[in-house]
Every structure is written in C-alpha cells, then in structure tokens.
C-alpha cells in the first residue's frame, strides 16, 4: 500500500538521504561561516569602539582591539575562530563577556516555543481554511477566506502585532500586552498569532489550490464512483497528496520562525533569538553574530531534511526517485 508507514523499506529509504544531507551540512556551514565572517569584517563600525559608549578613550580602543585580536589580519582571525569552533567553542560575547553558546542557549527555548506555537496555529487555521475554501470554490466563504489569507500575508507583522495587542490586551484586557511570562500560555497567544499570520495565509492558499488540483485527478473520481463518502474521499485519498506541497511550506516556514522573528519579538518583548541577533549586529558583537548564524544554518538544513523525510514518508514515489 502506498505510503505504508510500517514498510520494512522505509527506514532504509530514509536513512540514505538523511545521511547525505548530514554530510552536506559541513560544506554548507563552512560556506556560511566564511560569508558571514567576510560580511561582518567589511561592515562599518569597530567592535572595540562600540563597547565604550559615547566616550571612547583612543588608547583603550586600541587595547581592546589587541585583547580581542581585532587588529590581526582577517584570515588569522577567521582561522582562530574556526579552530575554536572545531573544538566546540563558539567564542565569548564581546559585550556580555559570556560564552556565545550560553547566550544562544538561553534564547532558544523562547524562540522554539514561539516558532512551534506560531506554526501550529498557522497549520491548524491554514489547512482548515484551505480545505473549507476548496470544498466550495467560488463561494462567498471561499472569497472571504482567501481575502483574509491575502490580508494575513500582506499585513506588516509590526503593525498587526500592535493592533492585536491594542485590541486584546489594552481594550479587552483578555491577554497580556507583552513578555515571556515564565512560559504562561496567555503570553504566547498574541505573538504566535502575529508571527503565524503570514504562514497561515500562505498555507491556506496553498492547501486550497493543491486540494482543488488533486480532487480533479482520476483516482479521486474513481473513489467517488466507488460510492465512498465525500469526507472519506477528501480525508483519506485527496488530502494526503494535497498536503505534500503544504508540508514543504510548513517545514521551511518553521525554519524561518526558528531563526527568530525580530519584529514580533520586539513588539511583544519576547526574549528570543531574533532580538538577540539584531542587538548583536548593532553592537558589532561578532562572536554572537557568527555563532547565531551558524546555529541558524544548522536549523535550516535540519528543517529541510525533516521536510524531505516527511514528504518521502507521505509519498513513496519521492522515495523511489531519491534512490
């Protein structure tokens, strides 16, 4: 049976591409690190001077440059950084004087929580809206849902966040205005909806168009001709195939959200990776920037791998093509 999850071939089918992707990670990370290092090196601004606030003693600036080896040639600095990285050391933050790994690890739970919640909201709302619209194409409901989806995609996150906050927190008082709230669910609702809005719209539109295409296929018509109920036809036969492109979008979207969402995090004072990275760039805290970008690259590659594996699990034809 196509897509049988218990297939004895499944693990072997998935292991090979997974291994290939993991091996491909090394050159990707190397390329990313080289690119980011070069970009931070040519970016205007001196990390040593940025550390000293409004009044920078020139002698101290030079001393800090020496201390952090900022006066060393670029290739020496890169090789030093890479050497430490190979020993598992991401370096020390210039501004916080703490290991970069610690700085990033502190923000990861908040970021992951928000990304997962936003993705869950986007998938639930998007897929449902897409199915509802596809079942009655051209109806008022279809137009209403798809217009809402376009609004969700095109509304600036910053503005949407402020409006939601004004409505649900300031005027109605139902939810907190901002903050992590020690992980309270109430604090998660508005940031997740705001962050998920774009993905909700994208998923809804994609689910609709994909489902419309699938329901026209012969095997769906055959299922209907066999007298199967509409819910069974859609749920069992059509949706499974229609979801393949949606899964791809969900996976990449999750990766997008996991690398931080500075605007949403700013509006809702969410202590995530996006805000951290923006602040580090502003302060020219290069070790944090480099460390964060590397972690992001790993997340992206990992998310892509998971998407591929998910698609292969759903559709065995992709597995066979991959061989």
């Amino acid at each position, binding site marked *: 049976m196509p897509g049988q999850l218990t297939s004895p071939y499944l693990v072997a089918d998935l292991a090979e591409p997974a291994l290939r992707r993991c091996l491909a990670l090394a050159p990707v990370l190397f390329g990313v690190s080289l690119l980011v290092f070069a970009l931070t090196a040519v970016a205007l601004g001196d990390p040593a001077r940025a550390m000293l606030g409004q009044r920078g003693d020139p002698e101290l600036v030079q001393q800090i440059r020496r201390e952090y080896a900022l006066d060393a040639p670029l290739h020496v600095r890169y090789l030093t950084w890479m050497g430490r990285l190979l020993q598992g050391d991401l370096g020390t933050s210039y501004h916080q004087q703490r290991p970069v790994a610690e700085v990033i690890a502190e923000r990861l739970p908040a970021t992951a929580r928000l990304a997962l919640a936003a993705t869950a909201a986007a998938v639930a709302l998007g897929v449902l809206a897409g199915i509802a619209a596809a079942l009655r194409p051209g109806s008022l409901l279809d137009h209403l849902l798809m217009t809402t989806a376009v609004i969700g995609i095109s509304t600036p996150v910053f503005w949407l966040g402020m409006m939601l906050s004004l409505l649900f927190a300031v005027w109605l008082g139902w939810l907190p205005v*901002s903050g992590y709230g020690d992980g309270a669910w109430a604090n998660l609702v508005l940031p997740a909806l705001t962050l998920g809005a774009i993905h909700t719209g994208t998923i809804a539109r994609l689910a609709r168009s994909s489902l419309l295409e699938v329901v026209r296929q012969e095997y769906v018509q055959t299922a209907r001709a066999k007298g199967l109920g509409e819910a069974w036809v859609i749920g069992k036969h059509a949706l499974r195939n229609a979801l393949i492109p949606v899964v791809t979008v969900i996976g990449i979207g999750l990766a997008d959200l996991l690398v931080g969402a500075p605007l949403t995090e700013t509006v809702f004072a969410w202590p995530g990776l996006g805000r951290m990275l923006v602040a580090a760039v502003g302060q020219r805290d290069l070790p944090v920037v480099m460390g964060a970008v590397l972690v992001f690259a790993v997340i992206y590659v990992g998310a892509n791998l998971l998407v591929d594996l998910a698609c292969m699990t759903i559709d065995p034809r992709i597995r066979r093509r991959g061989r």
Partner: protein
Amino acid sequence: MTRRLVTMLLILAVVCPTQAAAQKRGGTLRAAFGADPPTLDPAQATDTTSSAVIRQLFDTLVELDERLEPRPALAERWTVSPDQRLYTFWLRPGARFHNGRVMTAADVKFSFERAARGKRPWVFEKLAGAREHIRGASGGISGVRVVDDRTVALQLDRPFAPFLSLMAYDAASIVPGEETQRLGPAFASRPVGSGAFRLREWVRDDRVVLEAFPNHFRGAPWLDRIVFRVIPAEITRFNEYRTGHLDVSDIPTGHCRAVKADPAFKGHVAVWPTLGTQALRFNVEKPPFGDSRVRLAVAQAIDPAAVVDGLLEGCVIAGKGILPPALPGHNPGVTAPGGDRARARRLLAEAGYPDGRGLPPIPYHFNTGDLNQRIAEWLQAQLKEIGLRLELRRLDWAAHIKVVDEGGAAMFRQGWIADYPDPENFLTVLFHSRNVGAAGNTGRYRSPELDRRLDEADAMPPGPARFRRYHEAEQRILGDGAWITLYHYSSRALIRPAVKGLERSPLSSAPEMLAPLRKVWLE
C-alpha cells in the same frame, strides 16, 4: 543651640510632613528598560541601562542629591586639602556587602584599581599614578592610599573641581574583591555589592529582579522588590503602563502632547530637565567647514525653536548654549547665532559661495532613529532656503560613531549626556584639542587659546569664578560656529501617583534611570 534645633525641626515639619507620615514598607516597583543591560559589573558597564541597575546594587563613597550636590554615602564624611589635591574619606562603620562581609578602605583601593583597568578609565585618571596603572606599567594606583580600615586618602595629580562627582559615578562603585576573584567574568551576571538592593533574578532580555538588602547601612529600603522588565518597543512600554503593569514608563516619541492632555494621565506626567544636549557639529578639518563663515551661515539659517515646538511637541528645552540649563554652571545669558537667513546668505557669499553656488551637496551623517531622521529632513529643508544642499547619510550607531570619530563626517548629529554634572564634562571633553576624535572632540576643533582657558578653568577651585571662565569658553565656541545646539534633553515620564519618593534628578537621562530607588515607597 536649642533654638536652632527647634527651628530646624519646624522647617522639616513644614517641608515634609506628609512624607514622613506616609512612608510605607513593602511592595514591588515595576519599571522597564528598552534593552537588556549587557553587564552588571561597574568596571565593565558603559551604557545607561547597566548603570541604572548598578546604582541600586552598589554604593559609592559619595552620591549626588537632586540638586547634584555631593552627599555622604559609604563615606560618612570627607575633607579636601587646601591645595585641592588630597581628598580624605572616612568610611561608615559596619557597611556590609551582600555576602555579609564588612567593607573596609582596602575594598576602595581594590575597586578603584580594578575599575581603572575597565571600560571607563577616565573616571580614575585624575588620581596620581593612575595613568601608569591603566597602561599596565604599575601594579596599583599610588594616589589611592589606605590609611586604616576606615580611612582612605586619594591624591590627585592636579586640582580637579568635579572630583567628588566622579566619586559618585557608578564606575567608582565599591566591590568585594573576593567575589570578583571567585566569580571571574561571571561577576557581571552575579554581582555582589553593598547597595540597598541585591540581585534576585536576571532573565536575559526579559527582566531583572532586585530585592531589598535588609542589612544595608541605611537600613532596609522601603520597597521589597524592583522588577525591571526589558521591553524594547516604546509603544509596548506605554501599553503596559496603560494596562497597569508598569509603575513608571517613558512617553513614546510623538505622544508627549497627547499624553499631557489626556485626563486619564492627570497627575501621572512628569517632565524634568536632564543633562544632555542635542546638536549639529562640523568637522573643521573638512571643507567647507574649516571656514567659520560657512559654519555660522548654517547656524543662522536654522531656527532650533521649530524643532522643539514642531518635532518634539515642546517636551524638550530650547536653548542656545552648549551647557544644559540643569547643569551647575549653566549660563542663562549665553547667546548663539540663529534664525537670520539674510545674515546666513551674506556669510555664505563672503565665504565665496553666494546662494550656495560652488558648493557640492554636503553629506549630513546621523544615526538611525525616527526622531533623528525627522530632524535631518527638517534640516535639509531649512538649509535649502539658503542654497545649501544636504545629502542625508543614515548609519546605525556603531557605524556612525566610527565615521564621526575618525573624521569621516563633515557635518553630523551629536548628542551628549553628562557623565558627571560639571561644565568640564561638556566643554573640555568636547572641545579641548587633546580630546580630538573618539575621546569627545569629534569636530576636531583646535584652538590653543581655548585649550588654555579650559585648562585654567578645570584646575580652578569650585565657585563662580570657575564657572565664569567656562562661560567665556562656551561663548567663544558658539561664536565660532563650532557647535549648534538644537535642544536640551528632558526626561518625560509617566509615574503612577502611588509611587512616592522618586527623585527627579537631572542625571536621570530616562525615567527608568531614576535613582536612588531606596528612597521610593508605594502608597
């Protein structure tokens, strides 16, 4: 004697009858920062957010009151030698660190020597032998001498009138050496001071929570706790205040007039002058600004009052001088060119650029920020009236200071907030030729005559004569068009009426920087 005592008690009763009766113990003060403090180590901090927390966690030998006068803190008294070079401090008996150990004069020496090799060495460089120590050429500062457990003597290289203000600066906080050694760099995250509050919790990018230190030498503070939330967007801070989740907040840019007029905030709004100035500056080494007539033409072409009334809704202080009105030594009679376009055109013509002809577009550098952008656009429109074309160059802060420090910007925005309340911190730092570049003189202005006057003023004993010398220097700078003041800063805050005892010090560059919070109680 008895009559004097009775009179004093009567005055006290008239001045603060309700305050004494109403002080209540307990409660949590909720305020917010726009950014997470990078460090809580006094030796490493360079930003106002870190300083705001450090001021609650640590004590200094002296502190400045609301009128910026030095008052006893860890030092119960001090003397100054007749030559103004020797300061002797007597420490309070029994002042303890948060780890329970009694503070001694040796801690003062250790703290100063440690901080001098930190990020703000200039706080200590007036001490004899400090420069050698900062450079690493000596193992200590010879000018800091432990006389006995409770007495420390500080010897200066030469007289420096605002020295006591430096000793009140948070970089000069006293730290327990054993804790800095035990914790190493982690001291910045787990600070141990002697302040009225100690660190309870620091969740990065979310909140800093302080709790009362019951064994503070002044006794436990009124508040049980202070929660500083980290909320980057000013509109979010405002909404948190509106919904009752903050007790103190700033007023968002562009909302000042509306908030003041809103009956819901009646009794909440506080606006007070602080020690900062926003200005336009020229690099006098870059043409055409080497010619004072061009600089003066720019000064005459603009009317800073329009910025104050229009862009800033009258919520800052208009002013002509470099020194802000809240600064001791400010000259209310200072004059500066401005608001005379006919004169501006004449000056340009005299410089060889009639109606701006012959001048290429002038790059104007400023750092990112909504207000800075609007000021730049306003400036562009104003100067167009006399034929000067401005090209706006917006950079983020790190890039902006690099360009400006290295002399790459011909005309640029400069804001300056006093580190300590003295004209020296503005005029000498910003205009003395020894400070050209990152040290403060970003305009690269060089005048031997001005240097001489500033050196004399810096070394004079405190008093009106010294201030007069600074007034002359300030007038000279403004008359030469080396600096154009746009406005002086003010702190614009929303403070809940239940919050009592919150000092509105001119040194509080933002509402959340209000200090000291040990005096605050909640009604």
